[in-house]
């Protein structure tokens, strides 16, 4: 197999990795906020359920969760899971990452001094105004480094979907390596992951710098 063909196949696989990455972020970042609100809900059963959810998501391997999301419906309800694989992957990854993001948001929101809420109350801001205008912008600055960490981990975690035989870059690399008995595709795939994460870190650093106008 020529290097050219190998690169083309890996690049196509990389496209799939990027798709999983982008969709997972798209869903899990906002979902994390919803999970946070559930976590701190004054309705006890809600906060309890969310706590259990976070505990399970963080306490078990993502690979295992993906297997359950994909094969679970078949074993439980004999559901036809043909064509369902991609949905299961995005569902599994998003729900897993939302749990982590929720805890990151919580740490950020809880670090905002009480005085900020009190000042906002005295100035007449409503509850949602206070959260959106006063609290959230400060939280974003605080949590950005932790979110960067998660995002970088997510880039690498997209490779876990090979466990449900989804063809993305890592699966492609494994196939080529086995067929051609060469380690080269792994090296190239590693390069792809590394460069992608390098860009992610660079972009996030730009965001951080942009928010550095105050401390």
């Amino acid at each position, binding site marked *: 197999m020529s290097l050219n063909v190998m690169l083309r196949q890996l690049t196509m696989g990389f496209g799939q990795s990027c798709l999983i990455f982008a969709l997972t972020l798209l869903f899990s970042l906002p979902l994390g906020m919803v999970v946070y609100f559930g976590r701190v809900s004054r309705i006890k059963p809600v906060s309890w359920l969310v706590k259990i959810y976070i505990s399970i998501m963080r306490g078990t391997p993502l690979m295992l969760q993906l297997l359950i999301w994909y094969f679970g419906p078949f074993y439980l309800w004999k559901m036809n899971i043909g064509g369902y694989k991609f949905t299961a992957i995005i569902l599994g990854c998003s729900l897993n990452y939302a749990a982590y993001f929720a805890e990151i948001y919580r740490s950020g929101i809880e670090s905002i001094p009480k*005085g900020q809420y009190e*000042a906002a109350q*005295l*100035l*007449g801001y409503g509850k949602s105004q206070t959260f959106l205008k006063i609290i959230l912008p400060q939280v974003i600055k605080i949590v950005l480094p932790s979110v960067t960490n998660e995002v970088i981990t997510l880039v690498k975690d997209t490779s876990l979907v090979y466990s449900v035989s989804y063809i993305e870059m890592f699966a492609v690399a494994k196939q080529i390596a086995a067929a051609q008995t060469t380690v080269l595709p792994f090296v190239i795939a590693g390069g792809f992951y590394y460069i992608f994460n390098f860009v992610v870190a660079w972009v996030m650093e730009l965001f951080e710098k942009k928010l550095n*106008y105050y*401390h």
Partner: protein
Amino acid sequence: MNLLEMKHIRKSFDGLEVLKDISISVKEGEILSVIGPSGSGKSTLLRCATMLEHIDGGEISYLGEIAASVKDGKELYVKGEKRKQISSYFGLVFQNFNLFPHYSVMRNITDAPIHVQKRAKAEVYAEARALLKKMGLEDKEDAYPCQLSGGQCQRVAIARALALNPKILFFDEPTSALDPELTGEVLRVIKSLADLKITMVIVTHEMAFARDISDRIIFMDKGLVALEGTPEEVFDAGHARMQEFLGKFNV
């Protein structure tokens, strides 16, 4: 009619009674200072008056309108539009400023008048610039709080509170977080407000300042009003507990 009337206010934290049946009233245009040892309940009194803390007993009213009352354990706080209206009567200057760090000085002052009171932007900006000038901060409108000294931050906080045109302004130990050098500039600004006849309630440890600026002084001790009167009456009364307290300040 009194601008602020607090009757028989009681407040406990975890079983510790901080305010024990306190009644105070403030007339329009009056400057009232509240002094007393730490833990005597001064700040709690302000926090109850501004509804940051809920009272356990008593009644609070502004201009004759009841804002909060607790009778037989039943708590009644005004809600909705009425609450908004009553809340617009008062402003509070915090001990540690509580400026919004992500907003410029100008936005700290103008955001609430524009987005809460829905006033015209041009008018609010013009007023804010006039306020900053009064605070001696006309060159700081684009600065961020982290670039200012504590004294400058507190002056911005005063401007922020004034921008909403409250009828009464509360100060919760406005100079306690400042070093002595910066205390003077903040006290001077507060004094300049006195000339404008703005109603003020000031919790302070600055005895000379309180004596100088106040129409009336309340000396609080152990959750009670121990002494109340004109500055002369309070400082020269020969009240034993008051003298003991003042002795620590060498006034």
